[in-house]
């Protein structure tokens, strides 16, 4: 009887692979969190060089992906905090503005987006990117990590040092603001 085969040893990543496979991921996450191309470029360079220095310590794709999210989020938050004269905005609960006496304050119209519409045209992509860029930072971080990057709420809580219920609250309010921002562009025209 044949000996059971050992799983193949993971192939070590090369610096070139890191740049090809991971640089766009890092750049996109940083750009959406920071809303600024130049800051995102600085963060991408910082993070990628950190990854290359630690290449020997990774045990495979999932290991590096988790680490990359953590390092990119930390670098983006640090970069944001360093911005000179950063303006603090008080964030109002978007749900307070939507409802009057517990009910919808304004009429709502359905959107002209079919369920099987799979590909976003460039104009719609830009509308969504712009709306993400206008979200308050607290909501934007969670929204990008959840609905763009596809991370779970517990993973986001861990990355941002929040409770899962705080992540859910921010994600929900981010989604409500996004819905509100996109509505004028996607609503069906009245007959």
């Amino acid at each position, binding site marked *: 009887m044949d000996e059971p085969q050992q799983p193949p040893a993971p192939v070590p990543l090369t610096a070139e692979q890191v740049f090809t496979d991971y640089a766009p991921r890092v750049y996109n996450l940083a750009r959406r969190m920071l809303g600024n191309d130049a800051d995102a470029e600085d963060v991408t360079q910082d993070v990628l060089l950190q990854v*290359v220095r630690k290449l020997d310590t990774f045990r495979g794709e999932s290991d590096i992906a988790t680490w990359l999210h953590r390092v990119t989020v930390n670098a983006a938050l640090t970069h944001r905090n360093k911005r000179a004269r950063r303006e603090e905005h008080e964030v109002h609960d978007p749900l307070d503005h939507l409802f009057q006496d517990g009910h919808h304050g304004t009429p709502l119209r359905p959107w002209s987006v079919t369920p099987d519409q799979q590909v976003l045209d460039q104009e719609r992509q830009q509308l969504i990117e712009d709306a993400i860029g206008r979200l308050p930072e607290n909501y934007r971080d969670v929204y990008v990590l959840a609905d763009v990057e596809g991370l779970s709420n517990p993973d986001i809580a861990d990355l941002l040092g929040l409770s899962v219920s705080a992540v859910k609250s921010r994600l929900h309010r981010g989604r409500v603001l996004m819905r509100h921002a996109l509505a004028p562009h996607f609503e069906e025209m009245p007959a």
Partner: protein
Amino acid sequence: MMTCRELAELLIDFVSGELAPEHQERVEQHLGLCPPCVVFVETYKITIRLTRQLPRVPLPPGLERRLREALAEMKRGNPEHER
């Protein structure tokens, strides 16, 4: 019957299928009687779906060049990274 605001507070769990059964029933009851909430829930779901379709943008050419230069510099400083 719950208010539209109360329904909105439960929406994140409703769309992810994590709502407790007693809340699920109340939400469905409300949706059966409130057309604006039906639109609100549907457009909230579309917002999530559209966002998930966003493609990654490519690296700007200037950044790619900078990264490659930084990598080359690092290799010169530490040949271990040349593998």
